[in-house]
């Protein structure tokens, strides 16, 4: 059985301007030890998909449909009698079996608490060990994530650390509990490439050592190529294509995935050709298109695309794509 199973998840936000359909009918599953990349431009629903799963939606947001099963347990809001029960259960899960790493480490770190206390407390809470034992484990974790002179630095405050070092502390805190699932939301976007490489390698080692599953959210195709076994491409709140790393990079089926791959350059190749940008801009999720979310920017769009949502076509047991081009019922133009 999969470690995480997300079925037909939809999330909406209620605002003065209307309803924002942030996540629409998203499904995927993830096994232990697997790394899944979620790629898409800003506003495509990557973060809100994760916040829905881990129960951290903003007050005006609601999971309107779907089911989330984690480690054999139904953790959808609807499977709990009260909001309080749900929040209580999710808080436990987030501190134990699920860990999160955000783009800005300061969303996670307390600026006025010493690094040591921020590490030692979760260890004491979750492992019921003495403070001395927890401190020993904290030092070990700091060394594991590559923080030099851990014994000195354990008594310092977050502001005394560089961005890359702070992100390592967040990773160390996340790991204090041997999580089964690590969700990393753009963990390296604010970091330089050499630091980014170190942080990615760290996450990868931990995955291998403890057989945890990883969800890596990013807009950088290089990052997912390096780290992930499978990749989901999100656009306008939907997963438009999902497949193994090779299926996505070498055999993309969705016009958006194909377009995205043509927008970037592979420095290994010395092409003098101009890039091929995707014209236009992403859809407004207040008034999303009735049919395919990509219809306004797709050069292969047909009449059916505007009004009817495309269904998933299976290209292999791992490769699915939602596009009318692959549907024999569509009248090709």
């Amino acid at each position, binding site marked *: 059985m999969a470690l995480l199973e997300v079925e037909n998840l939809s999330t909406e936000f209620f605002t003065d301007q209307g309803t924002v359909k942030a996540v629409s009918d998203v499904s995927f599953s993830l096994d232990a030890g697997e790394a899944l990349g979620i790629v898409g431009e800003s506003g495509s629903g990557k973060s809100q998909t994760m916040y829905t799963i881990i129960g951290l939606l903003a007050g005006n947001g609601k999971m309107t449909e779907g089911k989330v099963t984690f480690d054999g347990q139904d953790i959808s809001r609807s499977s709990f009698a009260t909001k309080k029960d749900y929040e209580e259960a999710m808080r436990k899960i987030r501190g134990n079996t699920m860990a999160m790493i955000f783009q800005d480490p300061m969303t996670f770190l307390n600026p006025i608490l010493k690094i040591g206390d921020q590490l030692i407390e979760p260890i004491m809470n979750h492992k019921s060990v003495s403070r001395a034992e927890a401190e020993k484990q904290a030092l070990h974790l700091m060394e594991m994530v590559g923080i030099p002179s851990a014994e000195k630095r354990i008594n310092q405050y977050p502001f005394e650390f560089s961005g890359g070092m702070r992100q390592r502390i967040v990773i160390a805190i996340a790991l204090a509990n041997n999580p089964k699932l690590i969700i990393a939301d753009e963990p390296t976007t604010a970091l330089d490439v050499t630091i980014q490489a170190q942080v990615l390698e760290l996450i990868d080692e931990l995955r291998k050592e403890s057989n945890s599953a990883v969800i890596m959210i990013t807009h950088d195709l290089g990052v997912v190529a*390096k780290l992930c076994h499978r990749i989901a491409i999100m656009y306008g709140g939907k997963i438009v294509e999902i497949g193994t790393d090779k299926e996505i990079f070498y055999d993309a089926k969705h016009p958006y995935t194909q377009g995205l791959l043509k927008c970037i*350059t592979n420095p290994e190749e010395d092409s003098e050709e101009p890039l091929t940008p995707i014209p236009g801009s992403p859809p407004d999720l207040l008034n999303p298109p009735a049919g395919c979310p990509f219809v306004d920017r797709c050069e292969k769009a047909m009449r059916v695309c505007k009004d009817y949502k495309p269904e998933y076509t299976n290209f292999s047991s791992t490769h699915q794509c939602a596009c009318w081009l692959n549907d024999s019922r569509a009248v090709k133009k």
Partner: protein
Amino acid sequence: MSEKPILSVKHLKTYFDVTKGIFSPKQIVKAVDDVSFDVMPNETFGLVGESGCGKTTLGRTIVKLYDPVDGSIEFEGQDIAKIKGAKLKAFRKDMQMIFQDPYASLNPRMTVGEIIKEPMIIHEIYKTEEEREARAVELLRIVGLKPDHIRRYPAEFSGGQRQRIGIARALAVNPKFIVCDEPISALDASIQAQVVNLLENIQKEMNLSYLFIAHDLSMVKHISDKIGVMYLGNMVEVGPSNDVYHRPLHPYTVALLSAIPIPDPDVAKSKSRIVLEGEIPSPINPPSGCPFSTRCPKATERCRRERPKPIQVGDRLVACLLYEK
């Protein structure tokens, strides 16, 4: 090559005094410390390096937003490092800048038209408002916006569109040279490609030269003819972009390039990286000798004592003692 560079920077130094109080010891940030390079006409010179290495300071010194403490900046053969008054004004017309943050760099209370026309007024390029208006409309078309956008405010535009407005403003005075400081870093891939293509097209049409600053090495390599690599205020390597990428000479360039994530799973997953020990030293107390000597896997005793000068190796400049005979 017999052609003369449009920009020739020699031994440029820009320092910031960050001393806390009058009785504290002097604290000087050597943000740009003895940097030299040339940019040829119609060429794009890409500047890369990790945050804090001095890219923005170098760019801002060249457009004369900061004053250098030493060195020369020759633009079309004239040293502009110390010019003032009318000469400075004339220079500002030839040299424009595009900024990273398309939100902060446009005045939210001005319409797009006012933003684009402002530099035309400052430099008295057109006599009448009609001429300015016509030129603004033309510029909007050139950067891929619509004529009726002229009456709107920046807040009504997306990040990519705002960057186009910034480009139109830079083009308004018909410059010869544009310093682009991370113009695409805040944009999504599909929008980045639109802006890069736009910059390449207007370069051809208007015979522009660029200093293109970015931390995304793949995009810099794509857009640049030459690349300069900075580390701790120093230019450690300069050369043709494909050469530098495929055959880096300086140990720092080698390490930096090995960390780029390649968007190809077979390559990315098999690529190995050169791990650099330690962190970048402070530009207030840079190491004696080679600035990279505290982290360089090839450093010798001599590297810690002697500061390497840039040496010509083929069509490359490298500041590393390994290449000094």
